[in-house]
């Protein structure tokens, strides 16, 4: 190695001086100068083991006056708090003499220096937040030993935690406070910063009693690892974190998690306890994951039912069933404060049954089979139906027809009762329109758990103009922006494990489920099956369908293979916990990627204005989205390329700033023939009118603060339709 090497080499710092230890002659020392060998030998010395607790009790015996010491420009006066990630001091700024709070990271907690680096970046991002209800950070710096710290406003009045008892007597005050907090959180979300550890202790009060949200986005960075045992120390706020934060996908947290926490904090303020209690943090988390939160009024019967509903909505286990943003929660709280009706509705009985069925699929299957058997037996036993029942059967046929042609009905039909609507969501592929947006005739409603689906516009069908066939639907509104933390940045926390471990990688992917949002106020909309059929105004009978899983065997007879289907890569299908993976479809040659592999995928990414999006992340995934095989970034011209693929079918997923925007698939990649897959976002508000040729539309939900999304993406079809099922090739928009 040359000297120049060592200058840039992150190898050990070099020293030409022989600095042998006087005792052992070894030359390796810690930065502090202590001989490593001697320190090691200490471990061989006898003596009793001393636990942390007993050692710290010995430390506490020293009653000498606190020696002042400095952390950067701050004279540390006293320690005022200590959490899983660091220590907080009351400190005095050296020159201004201002009293501030200084928080520093404990290096041992930080796991790796990479984590520290991310901490710095995150702290800087948080420092850029400027909101009256967010605790201002004054300075982000680092100490002499390279550990980052930051100074912030010292909130003298303590936190909500200390005021829980007094606030409990003032429900209105609680709601007012939480509305402000929710707005602050919404503001942070809009700036790409998640909190991830909202709890009463992190909501401070200034001298005027105004809430100040502190610790934005910091805890997660340092606590985020997969080690369960380690997590035990970080679950100190179990009961306030969303259930999805506690799973293996802990690194994958969306704004919905903060919404959950806001609800939990409100719940805590109003009842004096968090929604879930348990003997230990793990049991609390388990309860939160497995059971519905208790009703607010079961603990505080005097509270208003609407507040109960609001809390319940926040505390939905399914992220997609919660308020879609902290801002929406704030607006809801404001409505309540103003005495206006709130938007959320209590969970209906059918929805509860649906949830139960989701949790007990086997029981449901058995029950369904039993009912069917029973019905069949009755029918057979009775033989030919009596004349008087003919109408019933035709009614049944009509119902079935509705299933086949969902566009023929609409759950927004005012004549349709709540029960009718709730029945509909069990119909696979049914699209449930909502009651507000009818201006577009090509919208799809319901929860769109993935960011894209594809609709084919077909030649005008004979009955296309029939108003009864019009699918009135709206696209699920966009989720708030995800934090400006890419999956890549999360990797160290989730550890390298994620790199090629499909399951872990899946966990690191943005939670598309929680990204999805619900326009439909009824909770059951969120729980609707993820198979979404889209009928266009032009061809409802042959409408292209979009499914959450392979439906090649389920395609309507008329659709045949020309029906465009796209696999919606939901979080569910990716993780596919039920084992119903699409193995026949997932037969991508995934394990033998070599640089000599002859196939390749390339293309470009352009935004709605036709401008190239540089630095966008593209994941070349297996067809089922379970394995990330390659990644690529777009260059300044928006181009990307991934070489060395084996011929096969791949999914290409686009993420901008860590947020998944769209995902498309190719036909079989061919040898020595680059496959071009472009992401071309073009706003086409009247997409439905575009009936000439074979147009395909990809919907990309809006994301707050993003310059793309919220549009139909129009792509031309080359016509290279895959002969088997749902593969398509897209050509650049011309």
């Amino acid at each position, binding site marked *: *190695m040359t*000297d120049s090497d*060592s200058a*840039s*080499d*992150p*190898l050990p*710092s*070099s*020293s*030409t001086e022989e*600095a042998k230890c006087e005792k*052992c002659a*070894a*030359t*390796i020392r*810690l930065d*502090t100068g*202590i001989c*490593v*060998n001697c*320190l*090691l*030998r*200490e*471990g*061989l*010395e006898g*003596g*009793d*083991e*001393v636990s*942390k607790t007993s*050692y710290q009790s*010995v430390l506490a015996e*020293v009653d000498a*006056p606190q*020696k002042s010491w400095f952390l950067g420009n701050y004279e540390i006066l006293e320690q005022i708090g*200590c959490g899983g990630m660091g220590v907080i001091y009351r400190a005095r700024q050296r020159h201004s003499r201002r009293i501030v709070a200084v928080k520093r990271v*404990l290096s*041992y*907690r930080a796991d*790796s*220096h990479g984590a520290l680096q991310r901490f710095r970046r995150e702290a800087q991002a948080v420092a850029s937040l400027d909101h009256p209800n967010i605790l201002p950070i004054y300075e982000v710096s680092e100490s002499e030993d*390279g550990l980052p710290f930051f100074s912030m406003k010292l909130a003298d009045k303590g936190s909500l935690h200390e005021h829980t008892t007094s606030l409990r007597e003032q429900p209105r005050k609680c709601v007012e406070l939480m509305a402000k907090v929710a707005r602050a959180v919404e503001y942070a979300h809009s700036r790409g910063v998640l909190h991830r550890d909202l709890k009463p202790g992190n909501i401070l009060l200034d001298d005027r009693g105004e809430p100040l949200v502190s610790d934005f986005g910091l805890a997660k960075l340092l606590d985020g*690892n*997969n*080690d*369960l*045992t380690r997590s035990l120390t970080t679950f100190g706020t179990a009961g306030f974190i969303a259930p999805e934060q506690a799973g*293996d996908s802990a690194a994958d947290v969306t704004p919905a998690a903060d919404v959950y926490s806001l609800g939990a904090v409100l719940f805590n303020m109003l009842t004096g306890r968090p929604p879930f209690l348990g003997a230990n943090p793990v049991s609390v988390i388990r309860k939160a994951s497995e059971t519905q939160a208790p009703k607010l009024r079961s603990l505080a019967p005097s509270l208003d039912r609407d507040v109960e509903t609001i809390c319940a909505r926040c505390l939905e286990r399914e992220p997609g069933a919660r308020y879609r943003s902290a801002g929406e929660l704030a607006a809801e709280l404001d409505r309540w404060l103003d005495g206006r009706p709130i938007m959320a509705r209590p969970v209906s009985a059918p929805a509860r049954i649906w949830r139960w069925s989701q949790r007990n699929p086997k029981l449901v299957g058995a029950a369904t089979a039993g009912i069917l058997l029973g019905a069949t037996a009755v029918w057979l036993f009775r033989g030919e139906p009596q004349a008087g029942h003919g109408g019933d059967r035709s009614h049944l046929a009509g119902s079935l027809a509705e299933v086949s042609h969902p566009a023929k009905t609409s759950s927004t039909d005012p004549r349709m009762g709540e029960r009718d609507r709730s029945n509909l969501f069990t119909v696979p592929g049914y699209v449930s329109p909502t009651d507000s947006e009818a201006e577009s005739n090509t919208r799809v409603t319901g929860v769109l758990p993935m960011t894209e689906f594809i609709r084919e516009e077909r030649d005008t069908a004979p009955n296309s103009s029939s108003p009864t066939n019009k699918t009135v639907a709206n696209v699920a509104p966009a989720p708030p922006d995800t934090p400006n933390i890419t*999956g890549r940045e999360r990797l*160290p926390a989730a*550890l*390298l494990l994620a*790199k*090629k*471990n499909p399951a872990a990688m899946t966990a690191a992917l943005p939670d598309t489920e929680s990204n999805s949002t619900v326009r439909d106020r009824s909770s059951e909309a969120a729980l609707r099956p993820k198979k979404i059929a889209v009928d266009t105004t032009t061809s409802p009978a042959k409408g292209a369908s979009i499914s959450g899983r392979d439906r090649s065997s389920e395609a309507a007879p008329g659709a045949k293979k020309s029906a465009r289907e796209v696999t919606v890569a939901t979080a569910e299908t990716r993780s596919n916990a039920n084992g119903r993976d699409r193995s026949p479809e997932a037969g991508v040659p995934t394990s033998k990627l*070599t640089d000599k592999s002859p196939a390749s995928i390339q293309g470009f990414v352009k935004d709605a204005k036709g401008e190239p999006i540089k630095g966008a992340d593209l994941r070349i995934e297996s067809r089922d989205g379970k394995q990330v095989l*390659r990644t690529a970034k777009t260059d300044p011209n928006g181009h990307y390329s991934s070489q060395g693929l084996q011929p096969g079918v791949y999914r290409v997923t686009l993420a901008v700033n860590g947020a998944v925007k769209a995902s498309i698939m190719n036909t079989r990649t061919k040898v020595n023939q680059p496959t071009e897959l472009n992401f071309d976002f073009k706003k086409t508000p009247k997409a439905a009118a575009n009936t000439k040729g074979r147009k395909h539309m990809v919907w990309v939900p809006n994301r707050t603060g993003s310059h793309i999304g919220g549009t139909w993406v129009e792509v031309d079809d080359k016509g290279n339709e895959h002969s088997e099922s749902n593969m398509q090739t897209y050509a650049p928009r011309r």
Partner: protein
Amino acid sequence: MNGHEGANGPHEFVTTRWSLILSAANLTNEEQKARDALAELCRTYWRPIFLFVRARGYSIEDAQDRTQDFFVTILKKNWLQHADRNRGRFRSFLLKSLQNFLVNAAEKSHAHKRGGDVEFISWDDWMAEAPSQLSISVQALDSLPPERIFDLSWATTVVDHAFQRLREECESKNKLWLFQALSSYLTNERDEVSYAELSAELGIAETVVKKQLHNMRQRYRSLLREEVSQTVADPADVDDEIRYLCASLATETR
């Protein structure tokens, strides 16, 4: 149980990470825990791995790639199957695996290009920001065999972890000043310490200084042993492992 907490001293040996990894190798339901534990260990001991690869003559970039690929390889699900109790310590098993990995990698002409396979941690973040705890001469680095470099770095990592934890335990009790004053005497014999001077300097009684230093030393030992214990399968191996590391350090300049 979290070995880092160290509240229960030697009892935690039964759940050391390495023993967890070994015991869970064939248990499906324990696999995730085992992988997490393995990942944790890898995170701690990435530097020895990188230095070893580097010492094998790879450029910095290539060494980074190889190290990352190595992590990926061993964190793969089936890797755990190869871990068996007969392999002994995590350190030696990791080194052996690393050596095999590099041999195999060298045989493959289609070595993965940097970043071409799967997105990974930015080495700039990881490496450049990591202050080295190891001060070693350039000559030594050039002359020592890679295996020795690996051991040196390993030993340093173990010690540094224990040392930092001690520091933080002091700091959390507002006794960073005490740590700073006494930690440099951790390895000194009792007669080498001038308690009177320390007493005057710190403004506390000499007996208190003695007691504090004694306890700090004891606590450090516990932390060090706990650190080492995470990498051995049998608690009885801790002493041997420490001796091995000491030996590698003692002969490092020869």
